[in-house]
């Protein structure tokens, strides 16, 4: 059962924040939805991908966030409603389109969902994407729970059409990945066809048009501020009768603030902002004026705080404003109730004790995420280690294979962003004598690897690019990509060949290997690093999680270690890394349940003690 499609209007259902966004889009009559998967945003697209056909919408996993945004702009400027969702760093990729799109504006409702990741649970940084609302000059809604995800996404489409502007809905991990009750409404079918009405003086941003449109945008922002002043998402909660203390808060921060206030049992007024940009300056100014002390509770950057301080200065208010600039709250990592409780006690000079946060117990064996048993990337890394040792410099990229950073492989020395392996490899190779190997996944190659490869071919950079092709976008939940043969439920797709792209970029030396074949992969890597210019190896083998699910390409009989032959050399645990092989009390063994049956271990054992089948 697809809950987001089948939940009956008026009923209360348990939904993930991301699913609530997807349901709201369907109720708003969305026609087009696009995304590039990324934690913590992925389930918005995944939910829509599953129901697209039955719901009668068009959904695609676009090649990257820029294309996703541009595609949606094409549809929305024609007049239909469009939703585009991505993780916070995805907006960096889409930003070029987004910022100028604010100038042209839209005809059909256009909503961009950015899912931020305070504490970098699954990300390379914890940038605060509320800045994009300020940078582009766009209205910003900040839900704090699944019900608000639903309500604000629906409202965002209305707002977008009223203002003829794209609207940003910004969540965080603790909003997108929270499951809670949502009362849903009626699903509305959007229009499939429109006629684009030509208006180049608005939609073609040559300088003369852009100058005019910037003025139009600023005027629309004034109108948007008026709407923020009366928005139901901006609300004062009066807790008790102490009218002197105030808290101004938004997003997940507001949850900790509300729970803290109740838990401490103090009296305070809480101004919760859901429609936070443009800042409703009358509402906030009046709140400041009527309180002696105002604590600003927001995760990451002091955006609200700085706006509130500027407002107080403009209105010559004497209110004491407390936040990050005085150290009451931290600027890095996500909050929790204990952090906010302590800030509240300090800000209002209340005697009380914030709870001590427990120390994580030391001395226990750690359990970081690892490459799965049977993961083809692990086999590739073993072969690379064997071929070039540790002296090579490894430029890594974003995906499961980044986990190669850990010993025993240590196959990641530099990682910045999607596609950076290819670009950084060129620079590394230019100024280092050691061989340089770049690793990029198939989905990431399509997303951002191709311009780097063209650059390297064109300029004759010398490095080996290994495209780790596991036929899927594995890390984010096995979404398809342009190389896949099957797409979302609504569309017929054409698989794009990685070989053709590589050759088309002008690469002269290209090999395709099966990483499960350790000997061939090792020999091919040895040969590749001696080439002049860019060499490319595609290491192709389906993600083991899919192979296990579909029972393809794995051995029927799982290997075992013949203890009479094993000489305890520990190669299988010290140089190879497989969660199914353990070494306890100096005895190495294979756990049959976790073993995927890839058979790679039978090739790597120097004494041939690991044998196929039983």
């Amino acid at each position, binding site marked *: *059962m697809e809950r987001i499609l089948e939940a009956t209007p008026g009923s*209360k*259902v*348990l939904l993930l924040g991301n699913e609530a966004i997807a349901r709201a889009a369907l109720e708003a009559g969305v026609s087009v939805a696009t995304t590039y998967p990324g*934690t913590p945003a*992925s*389930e918005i697209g995944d939910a829509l991908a599953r129901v697209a056909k039955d719901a009668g919408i068009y959904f695609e996993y676009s090649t990257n966030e820029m294309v996703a945004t541009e595609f949606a702009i094409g549809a929305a400027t024609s007049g239909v409603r469009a939703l585009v969702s991505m993780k916070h760093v995805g907006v960096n990729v889409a930003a070029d389109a987004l910022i100028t799109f604010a100038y042209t504006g839209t005809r059909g409702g256009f909503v961009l969902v950015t899912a931020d990741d305070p504490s970098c*649970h*699954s990300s390379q940084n914890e940038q605060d994407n509320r800045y994009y609302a300020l940078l582009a000059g766009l209205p910003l809604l900040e839900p704090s*729970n699944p019900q608000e995800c639903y309500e604000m996404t629906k409202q965002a489409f209305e707002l977008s059409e009223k203002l003829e502007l794209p609207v940003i809905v910004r969540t965080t991990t*603790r909003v997108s*990945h*929270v*499951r*809670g*009750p949502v009362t849903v409404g009626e699903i509305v079918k959007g229009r499939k066809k429109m006629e684009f009405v030509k208006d180049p003086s608005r939609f073609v941003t040559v300088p003369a048009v852009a100058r005019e449109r910037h003025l139009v945008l600023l005027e629309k922002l004034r109108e948007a501020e008026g709407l923020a002043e009366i928005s139901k998402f901006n609300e004062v909660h009066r807790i008790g009768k102490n009218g002197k203390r105030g808290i101004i808060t938004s997003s*997940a921060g*507001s*949850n*900790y603030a*509300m*729970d803290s206030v109740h*838990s401490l049992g103090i009296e305070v007024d809480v101004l919760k902002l859901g429609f936070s940009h443009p800042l409703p300056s009358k509402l906030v100014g009046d709140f400041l004026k009527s309180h002696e002390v105002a604590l600003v509770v927001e995760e990451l950057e002091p955006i609200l705080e700085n706006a509130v301080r500027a407002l107080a200065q403009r209105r010559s208010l004497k209110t004491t404003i407390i936040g990050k600039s005085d150290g009451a709250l931290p600027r890095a990592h996500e909050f*929790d*109730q*204990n952090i906010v*409780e302590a800030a509240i006690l300090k800000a209002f000079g209340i005697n009380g004790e914030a*709870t*001590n*946060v*427990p*120390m*994580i*117990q030391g001395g*226990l*064996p*750690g*359990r*970081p*995420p*690892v*490459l*799965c048993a049977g993961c083809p990337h692990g086999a590739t890394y073993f072969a690379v280690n064997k071929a070039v040792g540790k002296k090579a410099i490894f430029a890594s990229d974003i995906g*499961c294979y980044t986990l190669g950073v850990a*010993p*025993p492989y240590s196959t990641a020395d530099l990682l910045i962003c999607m596609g950076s392996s290819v670009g950084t490899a060129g620079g590394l190779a230019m100024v280092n004598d050691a061989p340089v190997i770049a690793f990029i996944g198939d989905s990431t190659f399509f997303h951002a690897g191709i311009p780097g490869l063209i650059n390297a071919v064109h300029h004759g950079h010398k490095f080996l690019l290994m495209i780790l092709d596991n036929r899927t976008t594995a*890390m*984010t*939940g096995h979404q398809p990509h342009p190389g896949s043969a099957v797409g979302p439920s609504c569309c017929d797709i054409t698989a794009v060949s990685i070989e053709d792209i590589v050759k088309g970029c002008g690469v002269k030396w290209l090999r395709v290997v099966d990483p499960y074949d350790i000997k061939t992969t090792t020999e091919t890597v040895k040969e590749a690093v001696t080439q002049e210019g860019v060499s490319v190896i595609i290491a192709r083998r389906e993600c083991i999680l899919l192979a296990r699910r579909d029972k393809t390409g794995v051995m029927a009989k799982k290997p075992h270690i013949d203890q009479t032959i094993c000489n305890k050399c520990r190669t299988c*645990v*010290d140089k190879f*890394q497989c*969660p199914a*092989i*353990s*070494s*306890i009390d100096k005895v*190495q063994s294979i*756990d049959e349940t*976790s073993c995927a049956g890839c058979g790679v271990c039978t090739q790597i054992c120097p004494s041939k003690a690991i044998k196929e089948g039983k």
Partner: protein
Amino acid sequence: MPDIYLVGVGGQGIITASKIIGDAALLAGKNVLLSETHGMAQRGGSVVCTARIGDVHSPLIPAGKVDVILSFELLETARAACNASKRTIVISSTERIVPLSVSSRKLKYPTLEEVRASVMQSAKDFIAVDAMMLAEEEGVKMSTNVVMVGALAGTGITGLQRDHFEKAIKMNIQSKQEENLAAFGKGFGETAKASNAWQSLKTG
């Protein structure tokens, strides 16, 4: 209004377990919030989910407020012990998934008795459940998560009825529903005994 802290290893079905708890709470007319771990951490790493039943705003449980630690793996029970306080009942599967750090760095995997001792320094009670054996008895080897939800339900701490859980299991698990309900029942039976003991302590 119990706050439940679920821990285990990526791939053990912890999100499904928390969804069952969430749907059961909603069926009982209670407010509920769950927080989940998705993405990179799922690749065989330590995973934490939370389930809070009652009128709260944040899904994260403040320090010292955990009512139940529901652990799917013994080493993760030890790791979660620091979140236990005098109010906390710890229900742990005895399943052991040996992490690579035990093999490669030669660290020691704690014994059941060591984990129990560590937990009982701060917790109110510790209940070990052989979830693998109970799931296997019902022919659903992979459903240790359902057994553990049964163990949680059996304590009565959630304030939810057995049939709320059973309906929620049917909503979240499509295959082998009867076997899964039986696995739930096995887990339920394991802790219902202990729960009766607390009741008699209270009344006696």
